[in-house]
């Protein structure tokens, strides 16, 4: 019996070794040697004729032989498969099948980037109306009627009985929000604004701003610097240099403009300041009990700097060759 098994193994391994690497041929060999009616099954059947004391040893031997043959077969089948697969190769340089993802407009993208930075600092995104009144666009913000401080805010007026206008900045949302909410809070306000400017590469009669406002019992000018420096570093990179210059806005005091180092010079990117106590008084807050920081920036300007865009009009032409770059 042992000899028979030995011969079986030699014969099988030899034939498998000589076989062509064809999966069909190898399957025939598997059936011949290991199949239900194969040679090994026949040998196994003969075991019953052996003396019982020999059976465990022979049984073990049969299993070993079976494993050896099966392993040889499997190895040969795998290498056969590999040979076959390598014959029928795809042109892997053909394009992948996919849906081109659409793109968020670079202005929306910039607004999201800005808002995300301030959200991380605890600011909440709030919006306000684009059609405004003189009351909110000017008066509550300490910009009196017929005052030279209005010169900075050329404004579109609407044909109507009452004096409606298109907001010329996002700051009216400050006083609208304060009238309805009690401090402490911090909000960030993105939105469209409108100014009657002749359109050219750097002017547009419609553009976007993001306004920020934080009010509490202990907000300081140093907090304004801290918050805005974090913003600048996150937006433009850790190595960006900034500086704060004194400036004038009717609704903040002290007021500042923040510049970033750009090439050899400095570029203004936002206006900011401590909320003017008069603005607090206008919304019914006690200026003795609260202080606040406020800032506002032009989104187009920041997007143009960040992406290296030279003409503001491109944002509104919506040429997809432009949009798909972002």
């Amino acid at each position, binding site marked *: 019996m042992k000899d028979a098994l030995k011969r079986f193994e030699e014969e099988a391994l030899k034939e498998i070794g000589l076989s062509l690497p064809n999966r069909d041929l190898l399957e025939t060999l598997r059936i011949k040697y290991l199949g239900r009616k194969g040679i090994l099954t026949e040998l196994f059947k003969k075991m019953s004729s052996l003396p019982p004391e020999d059976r465990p040893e022979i049984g073990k031997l049969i299993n070993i032989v079976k494993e050896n043959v099966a392993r040889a077969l499997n190895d040969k089948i795998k290498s056969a498969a590999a040979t076959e697969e390598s014959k029928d190769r795809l042109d892997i340089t053909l394009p992948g099948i*996919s849906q081109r993802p*659409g793109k968020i407009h670079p202005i*929306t993208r910039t607004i999201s980037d800005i808002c995300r930075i301030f959200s991380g*600092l605890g600011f909440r995104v709030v919006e306000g109306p684009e059609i405004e009144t003189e009351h909110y666009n000017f008066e509550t913000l300490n910009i009196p009627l017929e005052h030279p401080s209005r010169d900075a805010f050329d404004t579109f007026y*609407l044909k109507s009985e009452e004096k409606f206008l298109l907001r010329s900045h996002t700051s009216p949302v400050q006083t609208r929000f304060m009238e309805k909410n009690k401090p402490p809070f911090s909000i960030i306000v993105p939105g469209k604004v409108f100014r*009657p400017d002749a359109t050219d590469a750097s002017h547009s009669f419609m553009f976007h701003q993001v306004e920020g406002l934080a009010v509490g019992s202990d907000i300081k000018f140093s907090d304004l610097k801290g918050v805005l420096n974090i913003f600048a570093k996150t937006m433009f990179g850790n190595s960006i240099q900034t500086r704060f210059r004194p400036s004038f806005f009717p609704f903040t005091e002290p007021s500042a403009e923040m510049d970033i180092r750009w090439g050899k010079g400095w570029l203004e990117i936002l206006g900011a300041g*401590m909320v003017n106590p008069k603005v607090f008084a206008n919304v019914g807050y006690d200026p003795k009990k609260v202080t606040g920081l406020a800032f506002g920036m032009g989104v187009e300007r920041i997007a143009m700097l960040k992406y290296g865009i030279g003409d503001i009009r491109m944002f509104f032409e919506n040429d997809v060759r432009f949009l798909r770059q972002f």
Partner: protein
Amino acid sequence: MKINYNWLKDYIDVKLSPEKLAELLTMSGLTVDSLERKGDDAILEIEVTSNRPDWLSYIGVAREIAALTGKILKIPLITANRKSETKNLINVKIEDKKLCPRYTARVISNIKIEESPEWLKSRIEAMGLKSVNNVVDITNFCLFETGEPMHAFDLDRLSGGKIIVRTSRKGERITTIDGVERTLEEGVLVIADDSRPVAVAGVMGGLNTEVTASTKNILLEAAAFDPISIRRTSRVLGLPSESSYRFERKVDLANISYASARASAMIMELAGGQEKAFIDIGSKQEKNKPVELRFSRLNSVLGVEIPAQKAKKILTALGLKIISSSKDKIKFSIPGFRSDLKNEIDLIEEAARIYGYDKIPDTIPGMAASPARESHDITIAQFIRALLTGMGLDEIITYSLLSKDIILKSGSLPEAIVEVKNPLSGEQEAMRVNLAGGMLNSIIWNINRKTKDLKLFELGNIYIKDGDGKFVERKHLSIGMAGEIADGSSGPRKSSFFDLKGVIQVLLSELGVKDVSFTDTGDGNLSPSARASINAGQDNIGVLGEVSRRTLTDFDIKENVYYSEVDIDSILKHVNLEKRFMELPRYPSVFRDISIVVNKGISNADIISLIESKGATILKDVRLVDRYAGKQIPDGKISLTYRLEYRDNAKTLEDKEVLGVHSDVLRSLEEKFGAKLR
């Protein structure tokens, strides 16, 4: 305003180079916009904020530099004027003290009008003005030096020897020095003699009394006028001038006598003559209230400790005088040239400005923790953007202001249009009432640039006048498709109504909007062959369809365009972004396909609703998986394949149960629609 570097040195001993000076001024809030070097001289273009009229003069700028550098401000001394008083030479009357708080008139006789000397000419020209003659140049020189605008009249041409400061009568006319005849509205502040206006007060003098080569005697006016009145006049006449610019920002009452005396002294020096009279009516100085500064407040607002001595030094260097002082606070009197300093916060700003913003540290505010959740509509807008870009659509942003023509072409009723009163051009004359105009403009822009695969969307406000004439802003979503769809799986194909509908369906489904249906619409911008209104429950929330030929022609578009506009505000109440887990089915589903041939007129919706009604409780889903017309299918017919999913949630379905229901479905399709099984 321009600042001539060498001229500035007359008032302050500047050791800094023009570049360093520009940097110093910019960092203290007086922005130097540009600097033009001229050898060792330079012109600095400064941008003066509206709160600082005192900076509109050389002396004012020099005072700032004095505070910044510790150098001494040098105000020119006036040599004694040669006087020989003549009584009753002129008579000055102010009708409204509020409009003219102070008026001074100085008569100088026997002068000789000549060309200005070179030094004066070059200074006047450095300021961007043309030299006129010695007297006019001196008034301009003193305007820039002191900030007080002055005007010289030819005394002999003032009728009746009178100056009356009054408001104009309706229809009064004056020809100003620039040669333009102007008809005045009623109420414009003018300087008049006894018969006519001789100057638009504070804005521009009259031609008939101007100083010419033959002038012998002059009346030199130095005054203060009401800022609002001057501003209004200058705007109405479209006549901004160096004078009006300063008067509308408010001049310092106390500075008037100095400026007048200074100009007079210069005139007598360069043009000869003697002073014959000086009349001075009105308030001699500002009545600025004292302002108190508490050191504790200073430091708590700024977040930095500025030593009391330092703050005191800064503010006194700026011209403020200490009235009283203690350990905790100082009370200052405010000079006339700093009427902008009214409250403690104004002093805090001055201290911070000169101390240097760069010396204030960065800190992070202790913000109150508040639920930082955005409002519903902001979250939804972000959600929609993510979804649509995921489906391959590009976001556009178009102008909210358009020409009325475009707005009418995109289907608005004229009475709903919100119009702009003061547009700069016809392109900005009205507010969009829908997003279609902007979308079609963007599509034609891209078609003209040969882009073939356009799938665009915009999220933005529309603006309408409602029935009561009230302005309403609503957030809308527009989607436009044109040209080809090319995803690379097969050749490019034309985009279709169903590409657009698919986007809308996925969008609404992901927003959790229930009970969405598409029904007929009469929207005139869309083609009758392919248009639908979109409904959520009973609410109409938008439209979709193929843009009509007529509208496309208006926008010069030749290709098919598919367009949808959804009112986001009206779907807000249908949106449900809350998720809840639903138990997965425990028993397997059985899928059965039905392929039938029916007449083309029968709608998919009718077939599905019939299948659903016959499918009993075990039918869980039915969908169209294939639609075919062509070979083997008779004309006028169509082959449809539906896949039905059967499941029982309580047990494994048996074949005969499915068979029973499925045969019911088939039979009713045959009976109701004459469907033939394939």
